[in-house]
Each structure stands twice: as structure tokens, then as C-alpha cells.
């Protein structure tokens, strides 16, 4: 593409017109309806979007107006975004599962004039919140079911809207001319979309992205993985999420590939299999679920099949990733892997709907290394990326051949990343958002005047230049000597060992790091049986000297790996103890989603924390516990404390000894 062309097609409506011109007959979007994949070509999509835009214009939508889009992934909802952009209006997608309360806040904050809803459920919610959103005066809907008897004064089905727009375009040359002018007037610097971030703390914030932001990011993403018009993606993640907006909307229009909307949220796996996606995106839990489902189904398979499955999975584990990465592999393994491809991996990938996949991404949270390697060993090019709404997704991604389970890759094209003194990751790119909608304070806190964005995550670059995210920046503490203390990072490293079920790290404002360990009863019990360790209770097993030896060996390995990582050397664990009881949500020690509540635990086991830092060899503990039937009891125990050696940090970095 020449520079002139690129500057001419600087908005999504202009790109859509280009697609209709240059690849008009190719499929643009599909939707499975009544059991059949219905397909629209680029020419048809353009016609539908233009008609809808004409209708919206007649309805009084003007440049700068905001339009809410509520529902799951449906072609007409994506077209509504496009129609709004054609008029210079701004689509505001809303999560389909947001409750009325959230929706009321968001719609009022965004001052939407009009809402496009998928079905009765969403229309009902919109009607409920309408009186709290004074600007909202019209609702369009996609599916008629259940809405027949509603008052239609301010309610209209989308197909009627499109039909009336088509009539207007046919009968009135003026309407088409006005629309063309409006599209031509759009510029790359115009606001393209407002995406509200769910915001774990406080109210959701509206991230304003311009056409340039989204378009350049999408284009760079396509270039990074060499995506073209032959790709197939399945659109099933929330339309209000930046990932879906980039992958299912922006990149489809930029590269000209086809987006497939599933029949219902429950049929995604089956629909993906029918389509055979070539470019896939999913949060880790989707991959986890697929794997679990497979393993459960295999349990029911006949014995020869199970044996074959186990054998070839072992082959894949040994050779699969090497072959995918193009590393040298023994001929025998290559032959076995080829056989396995025919017998196991091929059929399995077909089941997953990943047979044709060129590149698959996972992001959002850390994926378990085992799961990550499982998919890669089958020959699926699964990669990780690190992104944010504020960056139009891309911050870092893993290039082909440089895949690791524990990093999120290198900075993307045109993205600069640096690490602040407190460990926070900062980035700057063409995708960086304009501002938070109507929230200059939050914008000023997040984005510096020269365009750097505070990600809120702490991380570091490893020796190969790959970014590693360790924790939320606000959770990362400092030790007395100023070294970083990333609690979750330490805990995850410890929990990597099957014998350790939970870990709680301490060190903020202290001289050194220390940890509470919870043993995993299944794994350690199994080990005890094999090693003739006799025990009567969890408490007794936890206090066993051999168990302490085993845990000490794990901690030592963790320390060794910390020592060689940049800026992590100071966070080596110097003392630990094994808790005599399992951390439990009933006692308030874990959240209901099984995350440790560090502050609460530090308070509840204050005596033990003091002992960790007083140099004592053991400490007495008395805590009240809640049994499963609701009765209360008291656990009293003498808990031993172990010291661990620190490994020297190469390169003469700050070490604990130096600080002491």
C-alpha cells in the first residue's frame, strides 16, 4: 500500500468502501442462524451499513453523538458500529451481561442518544434504565422475539431500519450524496469508539480511541503475524472488550478477512469446528476448559485408545514443541510425531476447531505453563500477548519461534516499552488512547504529557528482551534496602511445585522476604506413603522434618531462579514456615475465588510473622477455625521455622547481604 493510499483510507468507513471495491465478492461476515451459516459479502455489508447510516441520519444522529450497542456478537451490531462511524458518531459497546445498574451509569456517563440492542433481554434492561439516562430516546433491536407486544413509539427493529434506509438510498440521490460527504469528511484523528474498561476498582472509565489508534494498531498486528484476507475468525468474546473490537472488527476490515458469529454462546466450540478458524483468540480459561473436557472424555474411552492417547501425548511433549520451533529433533521422534499427527493430534485439533489455525493468542491473565505447552506440543501455534484497552490491545507479543510460557514477548511494531523505577511497565505507541471520556484527572494520572501510559502492572525484561509481568504495580512493595518485593510473583513461583498448595509472601518494608507455605495434602500424602513417612493428621504431616526438608529444597530452587533475574535477586526467601492448617475461604483467609488475602492472613497469624522476623526457631500458634459444619474450634500448634541461604546475584547487583 502506498503512503498516499494509506492516508486516504484513514477511517473504517473508508476501508469498508475499499473492501467493497477491491474484494467485493469475498465473504465479510457470517452468522449461523437456523442451523445454516448465512454469509454476507463485503459489497452486501457495505450496502447494509450505508442503509443503516442513512436511517440513523434521518433519525437525527449527528457527528459526535454517542450510540450504545448492547448484546452478543451479531452482524447487525457490528454494522451498527460501522453505520455510526460513517456519520462521525461514536459507538459505545456495552457488555451484554452487565446488570441494569452498571448500564444506567455507563449510558448516562456516555450520554448516549440511541441504543442498539440484540434482543428482548437487552431491550428490557434499556427500558428499565431509560429514565436515568435523559439523553436516550430511541432503541433499535435485532431479534424480534417477545417484543411484538411492546410499545413501538420509540422502538424499532433493525431490519425495518435498514429497509427504510435502502428505500431512501434508492429514491433519494441526495441521501446518498450526504452520506458520501459524511464518510469523506472523516479523519484518522476523529474519535472512533469509546470502550469502557470494567475497572476492578471504582467506576468504569471510558477509553476514547481514534480511528488512527485502532487502525494503526490493527494494521501492525496483522503485519506482525502476516494476516491476510483468507483468515477466518470466530467472534464470541464480548463486543465491548477491546480484544474483540480489534480482532473481530478492526483487523477484519483492515485485512479483509471473514468474521463468523456463532449461533449461540453455547455452540462456540461446535461452530469453531465447522468454520476451522485460522486466527484465534481466547483467554486462558477457554484453553483450560477445552483441555479438561478432552481429558474427561478420554477417561471414558476404551483401554487401547487411552493407551494410544497417552503414548502419543508423551511423544508430543518430548518432540512437539521442538518441531514447531524448528529446533533439531531426532529422526525417530519426528517419525513418531508424524504418526501421532495422523492418529491423535490431527483428530484432536479437529475437535478443538483448531486444525487450520495459523496463530492463536492467549492473554488477559497468566496461562498455566502445562496448558500452554500442551497446545504447542500438538502443533498449534499458541502465543501470548500483553495488551490493554488504553493501548488498542498491543503492548508486547511473542514472535514466532520465541515462545516461552512465562513471558509475554517483545514490544509490538511501533510500540516502545520501558520499566519505571518502581517496576511499573510504561508504554507508548500509535495505539495509545486519546483520553478517558469526561475524566481529565484519571487521564492525567495514567498518561504523561509526552504520551507514556502507566500500565498499572509491574514487570521486567529478561535477558532475551522479553517482558515478564510479575504483579499489579500497586501490590509490588519495597523492602528496606529498596529492592522490589513482588508477592504474587514469589507465591506463583512457589505454587508451581505440586507439593505446595498455597504460599503467602511477606517482605514489604522488611529486611528480607519470608513465606508461609501450605502443603498440598494429596501430593505430599502420596509422597509420604512412598517414603514411609507416618502421620496421623494434616497438622502432623505439615510439621514433619522431612516435609520441611522437601519444601526447603523447593524454596532453594526458587531462590536460585530469582537470583539470576534482573532486579529480583533481593526478593529471595530467607525464612519460611509450613502452616499447620489449610488456608480456607470459610475462615476468611482466601477469597471465594481462592486468592490469598495477604493482609488478613498477616494479621491473623501475627505471632508467626513476628517470629519469622525475630530470628526465633519456632513459634506457638493458637487460631480459631470454622469446621465445614459451621462449628468453631481452636488449633494450637508449635510451628518450626527454617532459614534458607541466599544465592549470589550475578553482576554485583544489590543483594540482601549488601543491605544488611
Amino acid at each position, binding site marked *: 500500500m502506498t503512503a498516499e493510499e494509506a492516508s486516504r483510507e484513514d477511517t473504517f468507513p473508508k476501508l469498508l468502501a475499499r473492501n467493497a471495491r477491491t474484494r467485493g465478492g469475498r465473504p465479510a461476515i457470517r452468522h449461523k442462524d*437456523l*442451523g*445454516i451459516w448465512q454469509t454476507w459479502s463485503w459489497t452486501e455489508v457495505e450496502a447494509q451499513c450505508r442503509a443503516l447510516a442513512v436511517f440513523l441520519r434521518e433519525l437525527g444522529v449527528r457527528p459526535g453523538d454517542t450510540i450504545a450497542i448492547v448484546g452478543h456478537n451479531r452482524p447487525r451490531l457490528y454494522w451498527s458500529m460501522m453505520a455510526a462511524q460513517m456519520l462521525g458518531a461514536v459507538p459505545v459497546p456495552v457488555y451484554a451481561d452487565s446488570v441494569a445498574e452498571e448500564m444506567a451509569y455507563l449510558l448516562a456517563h456516555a450520554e448516549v442518544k440511541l441504543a442498539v440492542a440484540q434482543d428482548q433481554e437487552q431491550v428490557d434492561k434499556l427500558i428499565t434504565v431509560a429514565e436515568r439516562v435523559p439523553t436516550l430516546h430511541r432503541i433499535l433491536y435485532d431479534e424480534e422475539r417477545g417484543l411484538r407486544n411492546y410499545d413501538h413509539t420509540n422502538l424499532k427493529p433493525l431490519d425495518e431500519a435498514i429497509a427504510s434506509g435502502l428505500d431512501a438510498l434508492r429514491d433519494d440521490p441526495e441521501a446518498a450524496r450526504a452520506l458520501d460527504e459524511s464518510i469523506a469528511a472523516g479523519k484518522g484523528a476523529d474519535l472512533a469508539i469509546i470502550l469502557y474498561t470494567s475497572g476492578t476498582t471504582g467506576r468504569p472509565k471510558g477509553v476514547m480511541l481514534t480511528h488512527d489508534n485502532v487502525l494503526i494498531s490493527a494494521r501492525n498486528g496483522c503485519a506482525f503475524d502476516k494476516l491476510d484476507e483468507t483468515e477466518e475468525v470466530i467472534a464470541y468474546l464480548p463486543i465491548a472488550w477491546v480484544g474483540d473490537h480489534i480482532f473481530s472488527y478492526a483487523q477484519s476490515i483492515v485485512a479483509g478477512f471473514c468474521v463468523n458469529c456463532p*449461533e449461540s454462546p453455547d455452540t462456540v466450540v*461446535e461452530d469453531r469446528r465447522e468454520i476451522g478458524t485460522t486466527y484465534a483468540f481466547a483467554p486462558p480459561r477457554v484453553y483450560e476448559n477445552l483441555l479438561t473436557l478432552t481429558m474427561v472424555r478420554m477417561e471414558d474411552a476404551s483401554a487401547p485408545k487411552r493407551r494410544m492417547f497417552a503414548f502419543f501425548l508423551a511423544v508430543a511433549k518430548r518432540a512437539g514443541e521442538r518441531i514447531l520451533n524448528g529446533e533439531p529433533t531426532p529422526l525417530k521422534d519426528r517419525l513418531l510425531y508424524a504418526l501421532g499427527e495422523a492418529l491423535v493430534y490431527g483428530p484432536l485439533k479437529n475437535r478443538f476447531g483448531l486444525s487450520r489455525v495459523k496463530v492463536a493468542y492467549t492473554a488477559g491473565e497468566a496461562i498455566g505453563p502445562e496448558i500452554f505447552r500442551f497446545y504447542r506440543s500438538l502443533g498449534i501455534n499458541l502465543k501470548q500477548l500483553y495488551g490493554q484497552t488504553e493501548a488498542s490491545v498491543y503492548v508486547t507479543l511473542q514472535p514466532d519461534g520465541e515462545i516461552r510460557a512465562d513471558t509475554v514477548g517483545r514490544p509490538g511494531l511501533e510500540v516502545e516499552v520501558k520499566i519505571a523505577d518502581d517496576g511499573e511497565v510504561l508504554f507508548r505507541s500509535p495505539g495509545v488512547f486519546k483520553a478517558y471520556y469526561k475524566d481529565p484527572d484519571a487521564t492525567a494520572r495514567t498518561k504523561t504529557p509526552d504520551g507514556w501510559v502507566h500500565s498499572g502492572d509491574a514487570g521486567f525484561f529478561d535477558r532475551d528482551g522479553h517482558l515478564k509481568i510479575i504483579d499489579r504495580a500497586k501490590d509490588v512493595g519495597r523492602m528496606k534496602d529498596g529492592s522490589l518485593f513482588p508477592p504474587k510473583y514469589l507465591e506463583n513461583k512457589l505454587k508451581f511445585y505440586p507439593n505446595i498448595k498455597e504460599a503467602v509472601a511477606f517482605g514489604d518494608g522488611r529486611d528480607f522476604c519470608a513465606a508461609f507455605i501450605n502443603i498440598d495434602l494429596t501430593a505430599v500424602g502420596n509422597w509420604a506413603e512412598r517414603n514411609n513417612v507416618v502421620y496421623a493428621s494434616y497438622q502432623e504431616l505439615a510439621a514433619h522434618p522431612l516435609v520441611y526438608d522437601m519444601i526447603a529444597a523447593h524454596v532453594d530452587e526458587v531462590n536460585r531462579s530469582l537470583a539470576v533475574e534482573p532486579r529480583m535477586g533481593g526478593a529471595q526467601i530467607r525464612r519460611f514456615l509450613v502452616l499447620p492448617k489449610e488456608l480456607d475461604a470459610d475462615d476468611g483467609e482466601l477469597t471465594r475465588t481462592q486468592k490469598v488475602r495477604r493482609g488478613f492472613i498477616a494479621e491473623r497469624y501475627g505471632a508467626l510473622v513476628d517470629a519469622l522476623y525475630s530470628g526465633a526457631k519456632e513459634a506457638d500458634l493458637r487460631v480459631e477455625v470454622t469446621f465445614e459444619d459451621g462449628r468453631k474450634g481452636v488449633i494450637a500448634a508449635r510451628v518450626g521455622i527454617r532459614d534458607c541461604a541466599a544465592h549470589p546475584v550475578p553482576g554485583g547487583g544489590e543483594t540482601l547481604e549488601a543491605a544488611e
Partner: protein
Amino acid sequence: MRAPGGDTRLAPGDVLLSVEGVSLSFGGVKAITDVSFDIRKGEIRAIIGPNGAGKTSMLNVINGFYHPQQGRITFKGATRQKMRPSVAAAQGIARTFQNVALFKGMSTLDNIMAGRTLKMRSPFFWQLFRHGPALTEEIAHRKVVEEIIDFLEIQAIRKTPVGKLPYGLQKRVELGRALAMQPDLLLLDEPMAGMNLEEKEDMSRFILDVNNQYGTTIALIEHDMGVVMDLSDRVVVLEYGRKIADGAPDEVKRNKQVIDAYLGVPH
């Protein structure tokens, strides 16, 4: 799917089916004694009563499975005393059963397709080879069935053998098969028995939607009083084979005889 009802001669509110003085006995056991009531077009009519009150027998009489010794049944203006279930079905009466009666080894799709059998017209010969008129017809039937699948939100289990489905979903498939007949009168025998609260809510919504969207007249037997009171327009109450009350849900709820029948009377 076809527009409401089918029988254009009847307007909503007209009597669709009337039962007059029906008595049914098996040998010496009197299951139903002199019961009369009617079902109006477009309404949801509940039949309630304690165990053994004759509710299911009543449904069996209506769809021609049992033949009453006395009394008359008038459906869409035609009076009859004896009728085979297949004829009742052809006339537009569909039903579901207390204990799910599906083809367990067949898929959801095939089970609902089975509900279209009565509407199939192409010669057996063509059906055998799935060619010519049979193919055209099958496509048309499949469209109706797909609309039902969409309506009941069971796309995800389209190809699953129904025997593998949880009970709540099997009930939904059974409703789908009854709907495939595009009936004028839909008889539901305890559609929510054995369901958990969420499944009951789903099923209630489907029943209301069927009634709203297609204008299908529904007669249902149900034990869950909350459901009955919420769903139905009129309720008829049976006890020991006799009718003891008939009217709007609120009226029936206050009726002393009904309260006694359900709570028992001190003797």
C-alpha cells in the same frame, strides 16, 4: 412458523374445546365422574388437583387415548365420543407426557422432526430415497424445526442424542416435538415435574412465549401452585374424579373446597 392457531373460524376467546358430562371408569373404578368445562382459544388453562384426582385421565380423554363411557367432547365445533389419538393429533391436538416419552437414541433434531411426521405428504417411495418432492418437503419441515430449536434455545444440543441430556432439557425437547405439530391445542402433562427452580423459570417463560407468539391454546397439568397461579388464565380443579371448582386463579385459590382438598379436612 405458521401464524396463530390455524383454524380461522375461531376468534380468540371462543370456545375451542368443550367437555360435557364426561364420565370414565375402568371396571369398577370411577376415574372421572360427570365433568364439564371448556377451553377457550388463546388461553392457558390449568387442570389441578391432588394425586389420583383424574387429571391425566382427563388429558387422555381429550386427546382420544381413553374413550369416556358418557359425555361429549366438542373440538373446533365437531362433537365426538370416540376418537383415536392419531385422529386427535391430525385435528391439531398435541401433548407432552408426565414421564418424558422421547426416542432416547435419536438426536434432538430427529425427535422434533418426528413431530412433523403427520404433516409429511410426499410419497413413501421418494422419502425412501430422499429425492424429488421428498427432499423439497424435508427442507421445508427442517425450516420449521430449526425455528423451534431457535425458539427453545437448544441449538447447542441439536445433534446430541436425547438420552444423554439432563432431564430439564429433555422436557424442553419434548415440548419442541409437540410444537412441531403446530397444534391448535397443546396439552402439557406436568411440564415442570422434577425441575429445579431455574429450569422451572425457563420452562414458564417458554410456555408464555408459545402462547404469546403463536397464540397456541394450552391446557396444562401442574403441581407447583406458584407456577399455575402465574401462568394460567383459568383453572379447573378436580378431586376424586369430580370437578370442585372452575375459574380465575385468584377465585380458585380462595375456594374453601379447594383448600380442603389440598390441605385435607379433619374427619
